[in-house]
C-alpha cells in the first residue's frame, strides 16, 4: 500500500477546476451533528481495563507529538522537551518514546539534536502557523526552512478564509505546493476545525486535504477555543477509512489540542479501533498533538505497574 496520496487515483479529475472540486465536496454525504456526537459519546462509554488499558496507554504514549508552541520557547525548553520525548519516564525504561516532538521551525535544529538517535521524529509547524495569513511564498519559505533544518514532518495550516469563501482550489493548490516543498517530510494538514465550524465543512476539508496529498489530516492548532473533540476526530476517521476504501491510499489522523487525560486518550483510541480499524493503531497513522497528556499517561502507567496511584511529583515537569 502506498504511504502517500497521489493524484493518480480515481478522483484525479475532481480537482480540474474550482467548480468540479466544489461540486465533489458538496456532494459528499451530509453529517447529522446529533447522530455523530451520539456515536462518539457511545464509544466513549467503552470500559478499557487491565491488559487493554496497559496496551492502550503504551500505544497512546507512542503516539504523542510532544508539543511546545509558545512565543517563549527557548533552546533550553526544547532540549528538555526532547529529553522527555526520548525518555518519558526515567524510572521505567520500558516506557515507549513518544512519536515526535513538535516545535516552531526555528527550533527544529535544537530539537533534532535533542532527539538524535532515538527514533523520535521532529515535527515542525509551518505555513505561518497558526493563522496561516501570509503569502504562499512566505509559507513555502517557512516550510523550506523547517525541512532544511531537518524536520521529519511538517504540520501546515490550511487557509480557512479561502475555504470558507468557497475557494477550494486555492486551498488545494496550496497544500499541493507545500507537499512538494516537503520533499521526504510527511505532511500533516491542519484544518482548524473550530473555525470551519460545521461537520459538513470538516468532512469536505478532510477530502480536500487527502486529495491534495496529505499524509495526515489534523484537527486543530491548539490555539483556538475548540480543538480536537471525539466527534470531529470520529468524522475524520470516517473520512480516512472511506478514502482508503475508494483510492487505496491510507492517510493518518491527528487530533490536537484539549486532550489532557489518559481517559480521554483511550476514548480516542477506541474511536480509531472501531471506526478506521486496527490498521490505524500505530503511530505511523495516528497521533495525539498534546503536551500535558503525556504526564497523565505516565502516572496511569505507574498506577498499573505498582497498583497505587501516582502523583505529579513522580513524573518529570519539563
Amino acid at each position, binding site marked *: 500500500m502506498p504511504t502517500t496520496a497521489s493524484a493518480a487515483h480515481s478522483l484525479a479529475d475532481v480537482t480540474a477546476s474550482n467548480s468540479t472540486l466544489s461540486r465533489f465536496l458538496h456532494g459528499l*454525504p451530509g453529517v447529522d451533528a446529533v447522530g455523530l456526537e451520539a456515536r462518539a459519546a457511545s464509544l466513549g462509554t467503552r470500559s478499557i481495563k487491565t491488559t487493554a488499558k496497559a*496496551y492502550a496507554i503504551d500505544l497512546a504514549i507512542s503516539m504523542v507529538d510532544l508539543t511546545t508552541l509558545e512565543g517563549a520557547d527557548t533552546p533550553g525548553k526544547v532540549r528538555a522537551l526532547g529529553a522527555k520525548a526520548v525518555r518519558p519516564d526515567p524510572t521505567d525504561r520500558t516506557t515507549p518514546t513518544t512519536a515526535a516532538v513538535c516545535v516552531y521551525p526555528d527550533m527544529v535544529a535544537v530539537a533534532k539534536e535533542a532527539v538524535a538517535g532515538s527514533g523520535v521524529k521532529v515535527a515542525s509547524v509551518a505555513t505561518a502557523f497558526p493563522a496561516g495569513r501570509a503569502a504562499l511564498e512566505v509559507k513555502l519559505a517557512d516550510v523550506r526552512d523547517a525541512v532544511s533544518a531537518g524536520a521529519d514532518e511538517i504540520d501546515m495550516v490550511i487557509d480557512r478564509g479561502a475555504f470558507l469563501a468557497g475557494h477550494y482550489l486555492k486551498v488545494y493548490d496550496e497544500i499541493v505546493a507545500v507537499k512538494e516543498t516537503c520533499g521526504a517530510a510527511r505532511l500533516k494538514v491542519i484544518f482548524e476545525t473550530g473555525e470551519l465550524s460545521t461537520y459538513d465543512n470538516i468532512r469536505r476539508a478532510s477530502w480536500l486535504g487527502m486529495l491534495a496529498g496529505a499524509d495526515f489530516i489534523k484537527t486543530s492548532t491548539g490555539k483556538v477555543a475548540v480543538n480536537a473533540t471525539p466527534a470531529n476526530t470520529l468524522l475524520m476517521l470516517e473520512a480516512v477509512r472511506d478514502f482508503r476504501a475508494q483510492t487505496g491510499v491510507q492517510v493518518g489522523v491527528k487530533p490536537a489540542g484539549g486532550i489532557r487525560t489518559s481517559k480521554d486518550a483511550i476514548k480516542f483510541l477506541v474511536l480509531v479501533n472501531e471506526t478506521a480499524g486496527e490498521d490505524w493503531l500505530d503511530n505511523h497513522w495516528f497521533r495525539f498533538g498534546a503536551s500535558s497528556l503525556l504526564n497523565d499517561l505516565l502516572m496511569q502507567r505507574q498506577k498499573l505497574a505498582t497498583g497505587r496511584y501516582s502523583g505529579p511529583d513522580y513524573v518529570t515537569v519539563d
Partner: protein
Amino acid sequence: MASAFVYAPAPESRAIVDIAPSYGLFIDGEFTEAADGKVFKTVSPSSEEVLSEIAQAGSEDVDRAVRAARKAFGTWSALPGSERAKYLFRIARIIQERSRELAVLETLDNGKPIKETRDADLPLVAAHFFYYAGWADKLDHAGFGANPRPLGVAGQVIPWNFPLLMLAWKIAPALATGNTVVLKPAETTPLSALFFADICRQAGLPRGVVNILPGYGDTGAALVAHPDVNKVAFTGSTAVGKEIARAVAGSHKKVTLELGGKGANIVFDDAPIDQAVEGIVNGIFFNQGQVCCAGSRLLVQESVQDELLDSLKRRLSTLRLGDPLDKNTDIGAINSAEQLSRITSLVAQGEAEGAERWSPACELPESGYWFAPTLFTNVTQAHTVARDEIFGPVLSVLTFRTPDEAVAKANNTPYGLSAGIWTEKGSRILAVANKLRAGVVWSNTFNKFDPTSPFGGYKESGFGREGGRHGLEGYLDV
C-alpha cells in the same frame, strides 16, 4: 507495531444486587404465597442459571389483589394531588439511588447488556416517574376539563423486553391520576417488578396502591377479565392484544394496547450515511431487536443500496456479543428459549423463501440463548421476514426507487408503530413523515424515548398513547 486492541473483560459487579432465593406475590403491601402454592423459576438467559423461585399468581390471588387495590382506591384517589405527587417523586429518587443495582438485576433477569440497562432503561424509568409525579396536582390543566376523575383499579400486563421501564410506563401515570394498580410482570422477567415492590415500601406508599402478581398468560387473562377492574393496560403481542380487546367487549373497561410492529427505516440517497448506519444498527439491534418499535425493515433507495450495505456490514462486524454484564457488550442474550426458537424458525423460513442471509463472524457462548446479528437481503414485501414481527436481531433489507414507493412499502403492513426517515432534505422529511401511518416517526435518528413524548401505534399496533400529556387520558374518566 499494529496489533489488536483487545478489550479485556470489564464486568459490572454482580455483588451490588442481592437476589433472594424466593419471592412471593406483592398484595396489599405484603409479600405472600400464591393461594394454591404454585411457584415458577426465573432464569438468567445468558447462562440459564436459576436466579430465584417466584410465587405464581392464580385467579384467587388476582381476586385478592384486585380487592386490595379497590380498598386502597378510596383513600388514594382522595389524597390531594400534591401528596400523590410526593410519593411519586420519592419513588423516582429511590430509583435513581438504586439504579445501578436495578440495572444489574435487569441485565441478569432479561439478558440485555448492562450498557443498555445502565444508560437507557434505568434513566428512563426514573425520568418517567419524575415526569408523571409532576402531573398529579395539575390534572385540571391537562386539557380534559376541570377535576378529571380516575377510573379505579387498573389491571396492567407488561412484557419482558423492558421489564422495569414498561412497569414505569404503566404505574407512573396510573398513580399520578389517582388509580390503584395490579400489575403482572412477564413470567421470564419478574424480578425488577418485585424489587419495585420494595421501592414502594421504602417510599412509604400506602398498602394496596400497587400490587404485583407474577405469573403466566393465564394470570394476565384473569386480571383482564376481573369484573372489578376498571382499566386494562397491556403491552405485548398483537395476538394477545386482540384477545384482550374481545375479552373487554361490552364492558365499561377502558383499554390501552401497545402491541407489535414492523417498523420501516427508510434511507434516501441523500442520507447522512454514517449516521444512518448507526440508526439502522440502533433500530434493529438495540435490545437484540426485541423491541416493538424496532426498525426491522430497512427500506433503502436502490441507488445507494450497495454502498449502504457495505457500510452496514462493516459496522456489524464491530458489534460485541457476549456476557451482558460486560460493560463493552453491545449484543446480549435472547430473553428465553421460547423466543430464541421463534427467531430461529422465522429466520429458517426467510432462507427457505429465498432471502439471502448474512451475519458477521460471531462466536456464540455455549450456554444461554443467543442469536447472531442477522441481515436478510433480496427481500421483497412478499417474504415472511418482511411481514411478520420477528422480535429478534434480524433485519430485512428491501429497496425502493422513489419517495412514493418508499411510503407505499412502509405503510404496507397491518402494523403502524414506528418508522425512520434518513435524508438531508428537510422538506422530504416533513412530507414523508406526514404520509407514514405510524405513531412514532424518527427522522435522522431512531429508538429515542422520553417521558414527555407520546408513544403508541396506528392500526394493529394498538391504541392509546403512553407518555406525555396524552398518556394521562387512558387513566382518566374523560
